[in-house]
């Protein structure tokens, strides 16, 4: 099917006004399904790939509204997507549908964009359809594999962590100084491994549904205090004062506890790591006028040159040269912090200069104010 066929014989009159002045594209050769409806919802154009995916025929479709067509689940999903996108006429979602002919499960990305006439006015909508079933299955297999790997690694780690922590506490008897030192090192390395597993899982599931915040109400200040404990020894060993300056009132938030913990730990870990010996790290919480709580992790360490402020949140970016750097790390910590905080509808702020320490902050809405939907925006969209 060539461009002339599409443009001249398979377009309705209403569509012609939208496409006549545009460069003609060979829609038949496009692998994605393409569908156009005018302002009244009348189908104006449809290509072969769209016919196949939507289980319709061009002859029966052109000049009729989508609502008049009896077809499969995907057409219903397209109608829903058009209705959802109506105010701004754009949007994209992956929908899960069953093909009528054989009930095969398909994952299709439905993207809606405005169609404009020659004068630039919005005169309808373009809908593109891409079968992403294969990609979805690969991602699903990858996520399942990562989840199993995480389980297999975390299970023995749970035993090692529990036993070593109990030994360090003296629950199995008093330890000599060298024994206590060795056990302390085991505890530290277990924590390091735990963080690496978290990062591995996080990186693998970042773009999938697995990463959507698992919202529950919890006491934020309690979590902050718990998150800091893991770094007490590292701080003490270097004479760093690690202090919590938390608000006295209750701070219930509706968020993903495990994700917020990871974000907090990444920030505290960085502050301790980049602090000079004998320095100070303060984690504080403040209730703001807009019924949100702001969490700040501040240190008086090396600081970050402002020209790197935007880049430090990039995946794998590190200010230090990887070959000559003094501090370990994968360059993923701040990337995860940003991903997590943004998934909760907030933003991470950085205030830092070379030699002047660093201050990272983000805010979460208090639970008594939060909407109840189980969506990322349900965690409260915040200005930061």
């Amino acid at each position: 099917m060539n461009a002339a066929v599409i443009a001249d014989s398979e377009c309705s009159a209403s569509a012609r006004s939208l496409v006549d002045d545009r460069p003609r594209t060979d829609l038949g050769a496009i692998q994605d399904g393409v569908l156009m409806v005018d302002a009244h919802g009348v189908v104006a154009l449809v290509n072969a790939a769209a016919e196949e995916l939507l289980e319709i025929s061009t002859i029966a479709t052109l000049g009729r509204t989508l609502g008049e067509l009896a077809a499969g689940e995907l057409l219903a999903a397209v109608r829903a997507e058009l209705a959802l996108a109506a105010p701004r006429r754009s949007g994209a979602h992956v929908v899960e549908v069953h093909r009528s002919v054989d009930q095969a499960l398909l994952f299709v990305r439905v993207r809606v964009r405005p169609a404009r006439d020659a004068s630039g006015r919005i005169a309808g909508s373009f809908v593109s359809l891409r079968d992403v079933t294969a990609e979805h299955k690969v991602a699903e297999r990858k996520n399942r594999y990562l989840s199993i790997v995480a389980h297999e690694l975390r299970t023995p780690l749970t035993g090692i962590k529990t036993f070593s922590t109990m030994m360090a506490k003296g629950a199995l008897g008093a330890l000599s100084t060298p024994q206590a030192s060795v056990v302390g090192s085991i505890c530290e390395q277990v924590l390091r491994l735990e963080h690496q597993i978290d990062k591995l899982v996080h990186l693998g599931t970042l773009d999938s549904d697995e990463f959507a915040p698992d919202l529950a109400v919890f006491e934020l200040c309690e979590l902050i205090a718990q998150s800091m404990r893991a770094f007490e020894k590292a701080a003490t060993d270097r004479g760093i004062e690690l202090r919590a300056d938390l608000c006295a009132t209750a701070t219930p938030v509706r968020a993903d506890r495990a994700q917020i913990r990871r974000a907090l730990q990444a920030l505290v870990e960085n502050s301790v790591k980049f602090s000079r010996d004998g320095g100070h790290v303060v984690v504080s919480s403040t209730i703001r006028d807009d019924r949100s709580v702001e969490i700040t992790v501040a240190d008086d360490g090396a600081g970050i040159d402002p020209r790197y402020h935007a880049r430090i949140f990039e995946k794998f970016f590190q200010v230090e040269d990887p070959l000559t750097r003094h501090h370990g790390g994968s360059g993923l910590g701040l990337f995860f912090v940003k991903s997590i905080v943004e998934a909760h509808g907030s933003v991470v702020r950085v205030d830092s200069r070379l030699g002047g320490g660093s201050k990272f902050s983000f805010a979460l809405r208090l639970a008594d104010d939060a909407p109840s939907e189980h969506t990322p925006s349900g965690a409260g969209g915040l200005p930061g």
Partner: protein
Amino acid sequence: MERTVLIIEDEKLIIVSTQMVLEAAGFRVESAVNGEEGIQKAKSTRPDLVLLDIMMPGIDGWETLTRLKRDPETSGIPVIVFTAREHARGHQKSTEMGAADYFRKPFEPDELIELVEKHIGQSV
């Protein structure tokens, strides 16, 4: 009065290490290595709280939770779900299914005790 925690978990290592933490904090501990055995022990020992793993052979933790909450004999026992695997919206799901809380392995022993203390005896 001694308070009892029932651990339903297929990994012996996790049972032994978790038991050590709980006993050091003064709890009596019962354990079961799968869901079926766990449900039976919950009925026979009437624990004050259940720690429930998700990934188990036979009936998994979700099904075990469903059965514990459906049975009038065990429905009032608070259940804390603990898991080493990522479950999409696992916290929401477990809360909706009647669990008192949800947390991930590896855990900090102190946090486990805080969580158990928070929910134990709180009939749901």
